[in-house]
């Protein structure tokens, strides 16, 4: 964002100037529900309209029609609400959110739900690479397949994938859980520090320090509960993978806790 004279000039995700970057106020509001068509709106205007509805109008249920696979839609929403994207999102969709329950009727591009703190994101179609990168909390449910390095650096929460997953899934995973119902590419859980990965299909190869784990009743209870919550039916037979703890020996302390202990 740059300031020029008295007017502020902002730029959309493509670097195009948007001198009048104010919420377009195009939504039809009906009580606590609202709908607007994003077909002719830029990323910035879509996000401004979303934020206006959620933070200023007190709307709790928003439907965004025709998002058109634009990038960086629905990011940084920090309140409990329901958002439906009737279509597909591009890259970095729903990143940095804390609380919303999001339904995406199409697919999402790379890095969906990156750094998400809490809430639920459900994707009816496929998702690109790096889905749930650095996820801290909440549930990400992808009914289709996900690309490479999904769950990279995952620090919490749950990623559920109905289809196949690409290579290096769960790379450097730190905490949280992944439930992958389909086949998984090479290097599963490579260099993971902690966390649990459940796989229903075949695993092309395990990554460094990723090893089969012992199945417990707690695993059964967890998986069944997640499937029940998200209406996914009966879970498939799953294998469990965890960190072998041979490569790195990190503790489970947050940096601030470590400071206190050490």
């Amino acid at each position, binding site marked *: 964002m740059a300031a020029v004279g008295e007017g502020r000039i902002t730029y959309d*995700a*493509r*670097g195009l100037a948007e001198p009048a970057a104010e919420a377009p106020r195009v939504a039809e509001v009906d009580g606590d529900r609202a709908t607007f068509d994003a077909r002719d709106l830029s990323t910035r205007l879509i996000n401004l309209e979303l934020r206006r509805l959620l933070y200023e109008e007190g709307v709790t249920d928003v439907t965004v029609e025709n998002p*058109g*696979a*634009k*990038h960086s839609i629905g990011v940084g929403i920090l309140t409990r609400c329901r958002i439906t994207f009737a*279509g*597909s999102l*591009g*890259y970095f969709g729903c990143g940095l959110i804390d609380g919303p329950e999001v339904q995406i009727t*199409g*697919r999402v*591009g*790379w890095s969906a739900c990156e750094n998400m703190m809490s809430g639920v994101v459900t994707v009816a*179609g*496929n998702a*690109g*690479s790096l889905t749930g990168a650095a996820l801290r909390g909440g549930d990400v449910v992808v009914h*289709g*397949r996900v*690309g*490479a*390095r999904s769950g990279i650096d995952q620090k919490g929460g749950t990623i559920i994938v109905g289809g*196949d997953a*690409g*290579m290096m899934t769960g790379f450097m995973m730190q905490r949280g859980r992944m439930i992958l119902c389909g086949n998984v*590419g*090479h290097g599963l859980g490579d260099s993971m520090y902690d966390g649990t990965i459940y796989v229903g299909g075949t695993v092309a190869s395990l990554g460094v320090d990723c090893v089969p784990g012992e199945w417990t009743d707690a695993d059964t209870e967890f998986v069944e509960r997640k499937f029940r919550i998200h209406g996914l039916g009966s879970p498939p037979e799953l294998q469990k993978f965890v960190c072998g703890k041979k490569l790195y020996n990190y503790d489970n302390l947050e940096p601030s806790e470590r400071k206190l202990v050490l």
Partner: protein
Amino acid sequence: MCGIAGIIYADANGGREVGSDITRMLQSMKHRGPDSTGYALFGPSSGSYVMRFTLADANDPRDFEFADRIKRNRFLVEQRLWRYGAQIHDLEEETEYAFRVTFDYDGDLKQLADLVEDVPGAEVLSLGHALEIIKDLGDAESVATQYDLGGFRGTHGIGHVRMATESDVDISGAHPYWAYPFNDVAVVHNGQLTNYFQWKRRLERSGHRFNSECDSEIIAVYLAEKMSDGASLEDAMRDSLEELDGVFTYIAVTEDALGVAKDEMAAKPLVLYEGDDMVALASEEIAIRAVLDREIDTYDPFEGEVMVWQR
């Protein structure tokens, strides 16, 4: 970063508006590469050859001699084509430095291309029965306007928007690359090849020339050489996953096929739509939606995948 796109139509007998479709796809990815834009379009084949060549770069200084030099060198190209047996039908001036010539010829294509490129400042962008490579500086809309691509009808095509990282911003560094001296093969690429110099030396020893310092140029020649040895496009592309190092996603086209390959690390994006009417693919879904104004189902090919569609 760069953006790549491709489209192949299922029912392209009469030719579809591939020029405007690729333009819309590339313009929607302008943010991935504003330096230059290029097209490899396949028009209907008439049996004659069509050659696109430049006699200067868009960046070249317009000194007092510029116009005369272009005129003189254009004459030299025409003269050489005639002298070596090419029957010229038409020679069009697309811009002040870019030309399109159609001709009949039954001699050695490499020799002909070499003779043309021996003219000072000349670079053959493409040569084939249906392939036409158009590339220049600027975004897709400006290049399409400059070369009047809105009316270009054809069967399939690929395109590229470039963010120059490892070579200069000029026409030589712009994609697509023609697989000199093999007709009707071209490639667009997003990524970096780390064994570029090794392959460049190897292919140069086999007699191939390279016009740019861009690593992507070797992919086209690499594939065409494999195919000239009898490999199918798909086999050649599969071999490339083993023999080319680096991170890459590239799209290759021949007169009757379009293929995509993604390296083992899957570090460069590609989104794919396969419909009854067409296959469209691009670095970002937003580009596919630029030509399909309806809800569509798309996916990312996985790492190490090679997919080829025949016309």
